[in-house]
């Protein structure tokens, strides 16, 4: 069975969607030479009318794509750096996202924003290490964070086909993952449907993006003593609340591991919703970046701000102990 890397899965999804729909085109910086590798080979395959290298004008080309989308195209924009989303927050959150409602449903803005390398890249310092998916879920932009190669393929394909703006965060920590897959079975993955990676009875660990691998490792470590269920929401907005509720019906305990800053991160929302609406027999916990973290450069300091397996393991043990 072929072994598919996460990055190749993204590349394959873009190519397949471009084959399928001539309205799909790609805008971004250095997408022709494929600096991130997500667009490798696509310029040769589809030509410069569909793989469009842009000047370093993120704000203009982001809204340019909005206009092109309203005129019938289905653009994908690649951003090399997650912090560029701060620069274009106006163009996504305040323009692209609002047009459907503000026009009373007269138009749609099917643009996909792809971040191949979100979160820390291991010492890329303060302005290249953000993971701002919670911001987009908060303002209501459809937000996905695939954790595996097949989900990267499936969620990116769905994002491109979706009639609304969708931000696809491909965590740096997951880009190196490989998975044996039957390429003919790669398929779109619906938004708002989570995935249970490992069944368990004692506690549900909700893990976002690359942290799914950490959650699985912790679950394995604890296997003799605590039965951990690993739930991957896959998309953060929409969120699979019924999937989470079903998991908590069984386990009654919740730990979230989330690469957001603590305050107002998606982890807080997951805890709050579970506390309000779902079955919990112990106080829930979360492991996150610190409040308002700016990732420092030095490796030790960078790592000190990210959720760790040790922290997750301790949180799981405390939560189960408390129950």
């Amino acid at each position, binding site marked *: 069975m072929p072994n598919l890397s996460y990055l190749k899965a993204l590349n394959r999804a873009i190519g397949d969607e471009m084959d399928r729909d001539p309205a799909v085109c790609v805008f971004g910086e250095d997408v022709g030479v494929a600096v991130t590798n997500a667009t490798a080979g696509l310029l040769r395959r589809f030509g410069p009318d569909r793989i469009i290298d842009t000047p370093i004008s993120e704000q*203009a080309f982001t809204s340019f794509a909005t*206009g092109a989308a309203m005129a019938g195209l289905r653009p994908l924009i690649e951003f090399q750096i997650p912090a560029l989303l701060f620069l274009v927050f106006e163009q996504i959150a305040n323009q692209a996202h609002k047009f459907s409602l503000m026009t009373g449903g007269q138009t749609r803005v099917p643009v996909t924003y792809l971040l191949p390398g979100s979160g820390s890249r291991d010492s890329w310092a303060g302005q290249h290490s953000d993971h701002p998916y919670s911001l987009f879920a908060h303002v209501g932009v459809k937000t996905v964070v695939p954790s595996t190669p097949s989900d990267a393929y499936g969620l990116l394909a769905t994002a491109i086909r979706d009639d609304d703006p969708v931000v696809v965060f491909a965590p740096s920590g997951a880009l190196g993952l490989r998975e044996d897959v039957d390429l003919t079975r790669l398929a779109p993955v619906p938004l708002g449907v989570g995935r249970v990676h490992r069944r368990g009875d004692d506690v549900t660990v909700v893990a976002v993006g690359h942290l799914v691998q950490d959650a699985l490792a912790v679950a394995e470590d604890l296997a003799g003593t605590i039965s951990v269920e690993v739930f991957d929401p896959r998309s953060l907005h929409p969120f699979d609340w019924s999937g989470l509720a079903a998991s908590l019906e069984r386990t009654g305990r919740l730990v979230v591991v989330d690469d957001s800053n603590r305050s107002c991160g998606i982890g807080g929302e997951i805890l709050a919703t579970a506390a309000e609406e779902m079955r919990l027999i112990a106080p829930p916990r979360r492991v996150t970046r610190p409040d308002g973290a700016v990732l420092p450069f030095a490796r030790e300091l960078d790592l000190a701000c990210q959720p760790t397996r040790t922290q997750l393991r301790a949180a799981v043990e405390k939560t189960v102990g408390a129950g």
Partner: protein
Amino acid sequence: MTDPTSTADPACDPAALYRTVALIRGFEQRAVELVRTGVIRGGIHPYTGQEAIAAGTCAALRSDDVVTSTHRGHGHVLAKGADPARMMAELAGRSTGLNRGRGGSMHAADFAVGVLGADAIVGAAVPIAAGAAWAFRRAGTDRVAVAYFGDGAVSQGVVLETFNLAALWRVPVVLVCENNGFATSMRTAETVAGTILGRAAAFGIPATGVDGMDPEAVQRATAEAVARARSGAGPSLLECATYRFDAHHTWEHTARPRYRTDQEVAEGRSRDPLHLQGARIPEAARARIDAEIEALLDQAVRFACAGPYPDPATALDHLYATGMRARAGAL
């Protein structure tokens, strides 16, 4: 009879231009009154005084061309062909409005006639117009887009970035700067270093200063820019010199901030596109148009006031084009 200053340009229809100017003028008078009486909430940014620009530019466009507009956008929406009654209903927040009451004055849109929407962030729609125009050309059509923006917008980075993209990629967009002398309370000289035409020139974009009080001059200049865009030669910029007769926003009618003198306003209003264009057509024709507009706008106000208010249960309808529903704010 007709005014000798009229151009006799066969492409210009003096009566049609007068009608559009009169329609916008009358619409804004009624809208301001409806703000005063509380029928329109949130106030408006009156277009009064700038009508020649909307009338002249839209007269040079086809129905399948598109425009993006600004917070001061009523003139553009009407001149492009939106129904004044549904426009007024939108301002009044009724479900019979163009945007079903979801947009209001600052976001009025009518995609059926090519109005991609007014935008309330200064300059924000300029790249949107350029993107739509680029898509038209890529599809092999000769459709064009017009981006309207004010003198305040030429200090926005995204606008200048768009000049660069549009020129690089020969985008069929006409950049129409309505220089009314003020970015809210700030005079153009206080906010613009260099010149507006010079900004376009720096990107190799042909730029022309236009008398923005003369609908025929605006139409002629736009026609040239549109022809250039349709031919594949790329963008042009028109700087239309105009004067805002009324407030930046109707809020000023009560707050009365003092950033220009009564004398200055009186001087600014002395050259009025309504009178200028009105003098170019026979008096009888003018009277006929005035009467027709009067009846049309009376009907528009009646339609707006009779429209139902939207059902609160539908507040988040259209949030997602796919129909996805958002969670409620309270359980």
